[in-house]
């Protein structure tokens, strides 16, 4: 295992979670727009980053306790109506040829990173991002509030 990865597994964040996001770890993408999900699944738009940031915000928390999950959502998206959550794992993100990195504060926050970026052909870059977003939409489990 690379030494930096080992170090990140050992580093503990303010949330108590290790810095390294493991493959099996659940990740929650909170959805505030009805256009980001249908009756059975999240849509690829739910995972797409903005052009400039090239990051997608998630929280390192699963559905073991839905009340706790919604509490995290309401705390993270103050004043917004969180309508659903799409849940996937670190492995799902990496199988989409992306990565997920811890980014606290806020507690348990992480970003999906590694999106194609900096290309001159913006539309081709968008198509490449969309393929990765489709893979995450395929893997994610949708829970409506």
């Amino acid at each position, binding site marked *: 295992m690379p030494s930096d990865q080992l170090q990140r597994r050992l580093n503990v964040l303010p949330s108590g979670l290790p810095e390294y996001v493991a493959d099996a770890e659940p990740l929650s993408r909170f959805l505030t727009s009805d*256009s980001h999900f249908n009756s059975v699944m999240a849509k690829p738009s739910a995972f797409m980053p903005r052009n400039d940031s090239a990051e997608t915000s998630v929280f390192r928390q699963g559905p073991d306790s839905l009340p706790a999950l919604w509490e995290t959502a309401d705390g993270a998206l103050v004043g917004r109506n969180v309508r659903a959550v799409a849940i996937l794992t670190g492995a799902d993100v990496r199988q989409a040829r992306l990565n997920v990195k811890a980014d606290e504060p806020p507690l348990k926050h992480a970003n999906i990173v590694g999106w194609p970026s900096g290309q001159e052909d913006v*539309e081709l870059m968008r198509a490449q991002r969309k393929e990765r977003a489709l893979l995450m939409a395929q893997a994610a489990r949708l829970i409506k509030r």
Partner: protein
Amino acid sequence: MFEPISILSFTVALHGLSRPGSAVSVEASRVRARAESMMERVERSDALFGGKASVISALLNLSQSHAEMGWDGDDAAPVDGGAIALAAAFIRALPDDCNMPEVGVDPDGAVALDWMPSRRRMLSISFAGDSDRLAYAWIDGTDRGNAVAKFDRDLVPGRVLDAIRSITTTSERASIRAA
């Protein structure tokens, strides 16, 4: 004595009357103008225009519900009005027997049209208002990919239409040709 005609026959006749022709009389111009006006009302009528009107209506709703910066609770850009118009033109250009998509907005303000019949078969197309090139990606079983195609607002690119039909067909043997 009047005989009933089908809605399809009526619509086809109306479309023919509304197009420019060789007739030059005042009466002919009046008929054409009336036909054009009626065609507009026909397109707005969901009962006659069917699924396309519903999707275009959904796109127009997006332009209102996603007009503000941060509509996703984060820092999403407002939906691009040009992208809405381009997506609507795409819907109008689709063959009438084509399955209709779901609509959405990407965080950068681009409009998305999604065909998602199952987790194994999905196609998504993005429309950005400042480009006539469509970005699209697909998953079809174990096959997946992405590509870009040019859209002139009148004709859906052949390989995009092939992709839509392949994803939405019920045949187990359907597959997408690589772009």
